């Protein structure tokens, strides 16, 4: 049994969670990053945030199973677009707690990632919305949506964990 605690998560704790998630993703700590998700999580990078991702194309629209598949694919060591792994460094800023939706606290932030690969460096910038939930005393992500500034333009491959 998992115990979900209700109640808004404070800004400092939410921000600390976001920084930790960013650090794990940058460092390719795949298992630790995956463990942050709840069982019903969705991970979404839309092309057009106004459209329903069930009927429209997204850059990423993963349910929890597909998040696991994405991680497993990276763990094979044969995910060519990540051979070698991208060098990453991201900053998370402008963190605000927006409010409560049922058991989840909605937190917004801005992410900026520098990705360095053989092809050159790419600067990825987007507005992030996290839905955070306290499960068995630990903060988890029930949802993460990243709206890239240039989401509807032609983008290079982006096979790291955004």
């Amino acid at each position, binding site marked *: 049994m998992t115990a979900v605690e209700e109640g808004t998560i404070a800004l400092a704790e939410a921000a600390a969670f976001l920084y930790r998630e960013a650090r794990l993703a940058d460092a390719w700590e795949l298992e630790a990053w995956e463990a942050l998700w709840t069982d019903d999580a969705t991970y979404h*990078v839309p*092309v*057009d945030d106004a*459209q329903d*991702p*069930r*009927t*429209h*194309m*997204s*850059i*990423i*629209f*993963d349910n929890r199973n*597909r998040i696991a*598949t*994405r991680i*497993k*694919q990276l763990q*094979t*060591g*044969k*995910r*060519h*677009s990540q*051979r070698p792994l991208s060098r990453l460094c991201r900053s998370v800023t402008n963190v605000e707690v927006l409010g409560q939706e049922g058991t989840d606290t909605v937190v917004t932030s801005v992410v900026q990632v520098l990705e360095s690969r*053989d*092809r050159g460096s790419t600067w990825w910038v987007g507005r992030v919305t996290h839905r955070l939930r306290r499960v068995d005393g630990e903060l988890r992500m029930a949802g993460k949506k990243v709206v890239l500034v240039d989401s*509807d*333009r*032609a*983008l*290079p*491959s*982006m*096979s790291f964990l*955004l």
Partner: protein
Amino acid sequence: MTTTTDLRSRVEPDRVHGSLYTDPAIYAQELERIWYTTWVYVGHTSEIPQPNDYVRKNIGPQQVVLTRDRTGAIHVLHNRCSHRGNLVCDADRGNSSSFRCPYHGWTFANTGELLGFPFNQGYGGAQAKERLAGLGAAPRVESYRGFVFASLAAEGPTLREHLGAAAERIDQLCRLSPEGEVELTAGWVRHEVTANWKMLVENETDGYHPQFVHSSIFSISGSGIGALYSDKSTAVTRALGGGHSENDLSPEFRKLGVPMGWAGTPEARIPDYAAAMRAAYGKETGDEIMINGSPHVMIFPNLFIAEIQLFVIQPLAVDRTVQHVTAIQFAGAPDLNRRLVTQCVGSVGPAGMLLADDAEMYERNQRGVAQRQPEWLDLSRGLQRERTDERGFTVGTATDETSMRAMWAHYLTLMDPA
């Protein structure tokens, strides 16, 4: 400018020269002789269903606007004001009977006709319309089952002549709809690669690479796709003429013998679709269509239909190409369509579990061919075991390079028509 003698010496039956992917002069010649001459896929009628709908599209690096006028006729217009050359259309899509240039207010109908120009006494009055130009328009626009193609050449083969047997693959795709129609309504993901456009065209029906490039996803997802492209596969690679080619996977799908087995979707999950197909075509034919599956066909030079998704290839420079991709949607199949969006989003685009790895190969290839030795790329795989099928098409096994050889043979006929 590269001379045609040069080109003939760079394309041989079993190998091509690396400079074909890197030489800016050859790229410039390809734009003129291929992209601005032959039939190029522009868009689909379902993207402009209503009178006065429009959507911005491309023919290679050229920006065009695909419009439906108030009578329903379709036009492909260059996005360039006839006054000072400004872009006249900003929005990606919309509904409007006219376009107004923001610079000096010249207005054009969605047929391209010049409608008005402010302070017209400066031109001697409204009658100057007779001598002033409208928007440039593709001289030839034709559609086949909703797929709209344009040719920027005033004369040449008809669209049906250009498509040849590839038209049957469009028919095969449309038959998967109980209403016989495809709808491209799911929006687009745009994926840019630092590679020559022909790297993409060649890869689309290369059955040799999937086991290697995509082993990471095949090994963990239980996907049967890898086996379709193995030494033991009964699938074939077929040159369809006109530079078009396919991986015909239907022999494997027939062996499987399960309706929708090709899509990896048990019929029980899409009961409404299966029922609608049998109601539309009868049980026997409906089952046969659902067993045979969807095509995997590269329609030269820019339309790639890959079972559940549709790609449009857009060259921007000798080493820059964008792939536009959408999930195919079938009219009258809402339960199937949702699954197709989900599957497609997982596979394609910048983060796609398949396409990000294809893109990595295009880019590594582009950097590789810039190296000096050896100068040639080998195209000989399966040449010794090619055969001609009952319809006269050249056929290789699932992993042979039959499609690439045929693409290059057609390439020469366009680049060096003499």
